[in-house]
């Protein structure tokens, strides 16, 4: 089957109108030796019934978070998505449109994105937010590149290793192009090495600092809310921008990045109403202070009026962008994640101020309940140095039981539990990074703790 809308007779008439005998004559410019002689070996031409059955079968080969109980995070969380969201997303006026180049017929997308920008600005406590980036990792990269433009003569970017390996790996790839001298400040037992960071900031050979930005996690990869305020101040003391990588749901409870003095806040926006979808597409949110406005990456929607004085919305400050500025653009980004940003805007409208606080508090309370319960089993201990430190709804515990973490996690998965993310065996030993969302019930948490105990016991007898 196919989705063309032209009958064979119409096709013949169109060919005649163009003045050609055969469809092949349309491809006269293609070198004849390069033309495909044989059909491609690609399976298909299935009916919709076949397709539907095949998709069901393929989907059933996957165990989903509706089959297992999810205690994993790492940027992607099993939050509840209010039912109304997908009903809006299925409106094809939204999802079959493209970038709103013609604002007169794109007010829906434009106003929705403008409201999303407002929501992200509110969440982060920073005055401007763009229309979205691809994900949290690329938003962080873009923040580093933006800092190099805002602090034009500086080339160095300091990043705390506690941002987590995935984000560091992405930063390293982009850093390999040479514009940015990336310096990763090694972690001091799962925490930013504040002394090393302050030393690196202070070590300026004569004259002005060459550090454009300091990238810090809030919370870090292990869920810890590090003491970032003094580090933001230390960055500012040498004129560097402070960039915080954040978890959006927690911003309902925590001091907002802007209120802490951060210049830029970015993060993975999947938790804001987007499906986990095996890690993508989510979105990267990006907010910053006014001083960065003209150097921002990506699209921005602004409010204006039409010729009759009626309020309307347009893409604005486009002279930063690739289609105008080409090699001097602030970023190469063109398509962003508009539909995911629409989703995030819907989610923020759905939860509201009180709902967001309630959800965040519920996640955090349940995370504490799980953590206390696991510690009470004696199978887990706290990582040295992390005791008593504040955390959100994700936390790391060291496994002190009779198996490897990998064995335990595999056995638990077979029993229907996704026991978080495995933390590699470092000087402090291996452990689990566990996340608890508002979807988890106390009964599930109790059963999970029992399962951890039972499986550890089974393993010890193998």
């Amino acid at each position, binding site marked *: 089957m196919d989705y063309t809308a032209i009958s064979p007779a119409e096709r013949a008439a169109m060919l005649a109108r163009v003045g050609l005998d055969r469809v092949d004559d349309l491809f006269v410019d293609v070198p004849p030796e390069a033309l495909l002689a044989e059909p491609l070996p690609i399976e298909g031409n299935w009916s919709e019934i076949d397709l539907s059955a095949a998709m069901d079968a393929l989907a059933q080969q*996957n165990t989903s978070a509706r089959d297992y109980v999810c205690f994993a995070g790492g940027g992607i969380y099993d939050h509840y998505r209010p039912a109304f969201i997908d009903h809006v997303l299925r409106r094809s006026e939204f999802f079959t449109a493209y970038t709103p180049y013609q604002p007169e017929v794109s007010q829906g997308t434009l*106003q929705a994105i403008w409201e999303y920008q407002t929501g992200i600005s509110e969440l982060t*406590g920073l005055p401007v937010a763009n229309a979205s980036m691809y994900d949290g990792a690329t938003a962080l990269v873009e923040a580093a*590149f933006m800092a190099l433009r805002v602090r034009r003569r500086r080339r160095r970017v300091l990043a705390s290793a506690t941002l987590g390996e995935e984000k560091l790996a*992405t930063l390293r790839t982009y850093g390999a192009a040479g514009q940015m001298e990336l310096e990763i400040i090694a972690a001091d037992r799962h925490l930013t090495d504040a002394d090393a960071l302050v030393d690196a900031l202070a070590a300026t050979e004569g004259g002005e600092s060459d550090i454009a930005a300091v990238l810090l996690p809030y919370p870090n990869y292990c869920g810890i809310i590090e003491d970032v305020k003094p580090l933001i101040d230390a960055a500012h003391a040498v004129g560097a921008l402070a960039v915080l990588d954040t978890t959006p749901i927690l911003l309902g409870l925590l001091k907002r990045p802007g209120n802490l003095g951060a210049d830029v806040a970015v993060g993975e926006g999947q938790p804001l109403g987007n499906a986990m979808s095996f890690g993508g597409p989510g979105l990267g949110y990006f907010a910053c202070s006014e001083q960065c406005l003209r150097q921002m990456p990506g699209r921005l929607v602004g409010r204006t009026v*039409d010729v009759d004085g009626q309020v309307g919305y347009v893409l604005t400050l486009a002279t930063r962008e690739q289609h105008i500025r080409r090699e001097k653009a602030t970023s*190469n980004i063109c398509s962003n994640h508009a539909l995911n940003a629409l989703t995030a805007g819907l989610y923020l409208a759905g939860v509201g101020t009180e709902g*967001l606080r309630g959800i965040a508090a519920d996640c955090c*309370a349940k995370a504490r309940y799980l953590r206390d319960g696991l510690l009470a089993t004696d199978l887990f201990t706290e990582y040295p140095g992390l005791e008593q430190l504040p955390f959100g709804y994700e936390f790391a515990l060291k496994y002190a039981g009779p198996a490897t973490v990998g064995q335990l996690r595999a056995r638990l998965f077979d029993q229907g539990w996704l026991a978080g993310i495995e933390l590699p065996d470092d000087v402090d030993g291996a452990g689990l990074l566990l996340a608890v969302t508002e979807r988890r019930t106390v009964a599930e948490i109790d059963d999970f703790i029992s399962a951890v105990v039972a499986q550890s016991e089974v393993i010890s007898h193998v």
Partner: protein
Amino acid sequence: MSEPVIYDLSAPGKGVVTPPASPLPPLDVQAAFGSYAETDERARPHLPQVSEVEIMRHYTHLSAMNFGVDSGAYPLGSCTMKYNPRINEDACRLPGFAELHPAQPPTSAQGALRLMYELQTDLATASGFAATSLQPAAGAHGEYTALMVFRAALAARGEAKTRTVVLIPDTAHGTNPASVTMAGFTSKTIPSTEEGLVDVQALKAALGPDVAAFMLTNPNTVGIFDPQILEMTAAVHEAGAYAYCDGANFNAILGVVRPGDLGFDALHINLHKTFSTPHGGGGPGAGPICVTEELADFLPGPVVERVLAEGNTAAAGYRFVNPPRSIGRVRSWYGNFGVMVRAWVYIRALGAAGLRKVGQQAVLSANYLRVLLEGVFEVAYNRICMHEFVLSGAPFAKAYGVHTLDIAKRLLDFGFHPPTIYFPLIVEEAMMFEPTETEPLASLDALASALLSIAQEAETNPELLHSAPHSTPVRRLDEAGAARDPQLRWTNTTEVA
């Protein structure tokens, strides 16, 4: 009438979502977060407190102010606004795809890995390459990724420091030079000939030991398949550089000719153009890249590999691996998986014959529309075109003071989305039309008829065009004012006052 901002509908005590009742004691925020707890209510985020019915009406009103492919013809050049099949939308929402956590064991997501493996394979097959990375999130991200692959391959040859220049034709999309900068190269522009083709002599003159790559969109942005392609890629390789194909226009040649057979070393494919995944109002898309055998080891990871059972050719399973000399990560996790699901369904629906028909019909439809308009409109490089063609509004500007922008805005009154305008840069007052293969004949005829009427109006009533559109939810907007005094978010003006 304009739609109120959702923040203006907010009132304390309203709201949709509340967390479930919990037997646990409420969180002591101060104890939990110490000095990082926000205790000042005024310093907290202020989000709308609205009811569900208000949200649904608000967004329904907003959707009614939008124009999508389902609303009517959307011939936006180089964007391939084809129909988005609905079964794709259902498939990606199946819990077995939408509710997968990326950290779950890959052995528990074999259906997903198989889908990714087959998509990797099918894209490589359709484009004539050896290997695919599904990581890039969009076309521009794919361009950047491929350039970083070139950089790594050059470094392996000890030439990364000397080969710093990337050559780009003057017809290229803006993302090409922007990606070049991001990947740490310098771009240099190659002019086009009067026929809208690459000036091959200029290209050959620019090729030297400092050139890392040549980026070409083929078919190009004036809708012509450059017949000099084999000569160009040979010259690029002779000079020790790589040839990159911007696959934005891949739809034109799908199933007819493969970029890998034309001497290209790498290509990105926009799944949201050629493979029918929705454009989403500006994403999410996906921009997988396909490369030659030589470059496969440098792809970003992870990629999916098929594991064969011992002594057997049947797949025993699928796993993620990082290519041995990978450039590393270009984003988080495995790519835009939800978009991949839709593309896989599309490919299985069409198969080899259906894919070939896509390219053929897309090109025929563009030529049909071009022929209906030639004579009245000036067609830039008027000849057999590929999936798109470019009109120049310059004669209307000279004769009647009616510009391309006016024609585009007037087209809105006729119920059509305008073409891409003022691009490519080498055509004065450009209008770039790409009807795609899914546009019905009656719709093509109606679009042409509307454009011919507008051409008459330009002569008889130019003011009607200058003041267009007349029938849209808002009329021409003050874009200069928006940029001069940026209002980028809602503010509670009453409170400020």
